């Protein structure tokens, strides 16, 4: 099967003065057409920056892609022209952003903002209006006509979040990047959105990159999970494998901190001690080491690359059998 999107050793750096410190430190990730991939990690682990890099939407300066390739159907987006990027944005790849409340232009009607996105990609106005209305109905907004005529400040947080999802879906993208898209929604609406995305996938073979810290959502929605820590991927595993047999102590700790888990990792931390490191000043060795109960001598010297561990890949020097009980 061909890959739709392929990140090759992506490095994103933060410039301050004449120095740059990498914050995303070599992320490689493949997404196949129709595949659903979850991206999990604490705040500051580089999930959002990685996703924004794909559409080249980083706030530059101070953020910049320093190294690596972003291949869309084999075409490298890191060297693409602004013109080409405009064709990709909102059409081939659409994104739902974190913090929806501030993600719409406060001075324009909501309907107009959706139509504007469609019209930019050669959809004529009447057709764009129809598509916008359909999309708003699909995400479960009861009165799409009223929502279209509203300004963002007249809608609730949950409604705006659904508007943002509708805006992304209206263009029928081949890849949907969703950054914590269901955080402001109550459980029933959240379920509805997940069902909608699953539905759309059956009919359109849309691929999904779903950034979340909610492992419950991950379990229901995605085929594969990528766990990020301190700007790197520390584990990449099929969903069932990840829940059954995590290959990285950090993943195991995340699972153990789930409320009411019936997993067998009770011996691990329920709450991960310490806090994630500042990615701009990392020490030598594995960045998770200070919080890891299974660290050995080697972890202090060398940062582990992604190593194959059965069906998974994990950035840990130790075999899962050595620390799993």
């Amino acid at each position, binding site marked *: 099967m061909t890959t739709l999107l392929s990140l090759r050793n992506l490095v994103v750096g933060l410039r301050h003065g004449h120095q740059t410190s990498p914050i995303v430190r070599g992320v490689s990730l493949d997404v196949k057409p129709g595949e659903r991939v979850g991206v999990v990690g604490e705040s500051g682990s580089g999930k959002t920056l990685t996703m924004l890099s794909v559409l080249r939407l980083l*706030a530059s300066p101070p953020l910049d892609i320093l190294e690596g390739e972003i291949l869309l159907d084999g075409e490298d987006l890191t060297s693409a022209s602004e013109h080409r990027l405009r064709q*990709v944005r*909102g059409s081939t790849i659409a994104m739902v952003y974190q*913090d929806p409340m*501030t*993600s719409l*232009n406060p001075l324009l009607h909501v309907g107009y903002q959706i139509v*504007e996105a469609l019209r930019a990609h050669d959809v004529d106005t009447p057709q764009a209006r129809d598509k916008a209305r359909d999309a708003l109905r699909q995400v479960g907004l009861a009165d799409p006509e009223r929502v279209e005529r509203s300004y963002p*400040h007249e809608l609730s947080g949950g409604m705006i979040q659904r508007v*943002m999802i509708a805006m992304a879906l209206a263009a029928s993208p081949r890849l949907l990047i969703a950054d914590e898209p269901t955080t402001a929604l109550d459980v029933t609406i959240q379920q509805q959105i997940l069902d909608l995305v699953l539905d759309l996938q059956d009919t359109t073979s849309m691929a999904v990159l779903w950034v979340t810290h909610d492992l419950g959502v991950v379990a229901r929605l995605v085929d594969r999970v990528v766990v990020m820590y301190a700007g790197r991927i520390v584990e990449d595993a099929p969903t069932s494998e990840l829940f059954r047999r995590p290959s990285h102590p950090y993943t195991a700790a995340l699972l153990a901190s789930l409320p009411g888990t019936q997993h067998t990792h009770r011996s691990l931390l329920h709450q991960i001690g310490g806090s994630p490191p500042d990615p701009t000043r990392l020490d030598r060795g594995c960045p998770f080491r200070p919080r890891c109960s299974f660290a050995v001598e080697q972890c202090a010297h060398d940062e582990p690359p992604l190593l194959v561990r059965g069906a998974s890949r994990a950035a840990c020097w130790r075999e899962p059998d050595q620390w799993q009980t």
Partner: protein
Amino acid sequence: MLLPLVRRLASMLTTLFGVLVVVFVILRLLPGNAVTASLGVNAGLLSHAQLQAIDKFYGVGESIPQQFFSWLWSMLHGNLGVSLSSREPVSTLIGSALPVTLELAVMSMILGILIGVGFGMIGALHPDRWQDDVGQGLAVFGLSVPSFVIGTVLITYLASIFHYFPSSLGFVGLFTNPWLNLQQVFLPALTLSFGIGAAIMRTTRAAVLEIRGLNFARTARGKGISHLAYVWRHLFLNALVAITTMSGIQFGYLLGGAVIVEDIFVLPGIGRLLITSITDRDFPVVQSVTLIFAAGFIVVNTLIDISYTLIDPRTRRR
């Protein structure tokens, strides 16, 4: 919708009344009056009785509150009084001077906004690049060099090197000879627009730079809309409230600057009228001109307040 409008109108009138009182009192505190100003040292030759008769004729002998209310009363009847120095009705003097100043004000505002918004947008879209440096340099120049220096330098160089000084032909009206008139107003307007443009440029740059970093600007870019649509519909539109506010403030400075610039460029506007009438202690003219300046400033800023509700739906009340 109606009630806020009435409230706004009431506050406008209160402000105007306050301006009138202040101007009236300050003028009366100046030493000398119209009689001494026109008679000069000859006033000393008149007898006490003669002086009193003249004072009574001009109404300057009454108490200050009496003078104020009799002037207010006649003004409410549309009578602005008679100039003490030229003996012409004040309304005639203002009627011929006001259009000149209006033309100057409109042209300076247009030039200032074009310069300010233009350089501000360019600077904000290319921060810390040479385009931005040019704009920033111009802004420092415009803010720090006073208009009378710019005006004098313009006149000196254009007149002595290029022999170009349209004002030397005597002022012509916009409808008598539009081409010559526009040339005559253009230089003073350009002089005034440096300061206006500099302030608007800085506001525009700062506002657009901030908006570029906001989430909705990123959403707009992420839609793949054209660069023009992104810049104007999303960045500029959201900067418009700040730009309009700064334009209103600059309009106030413009009125002050017009007084000086009209004098330098010999434009027969109300700024020059004000200067000559102050020297002549021609109180009816000074009062009326001040009133017009104040009214102009208040009206423009009220219009700006109203424009906010047109630009930003969040300021609209349902």
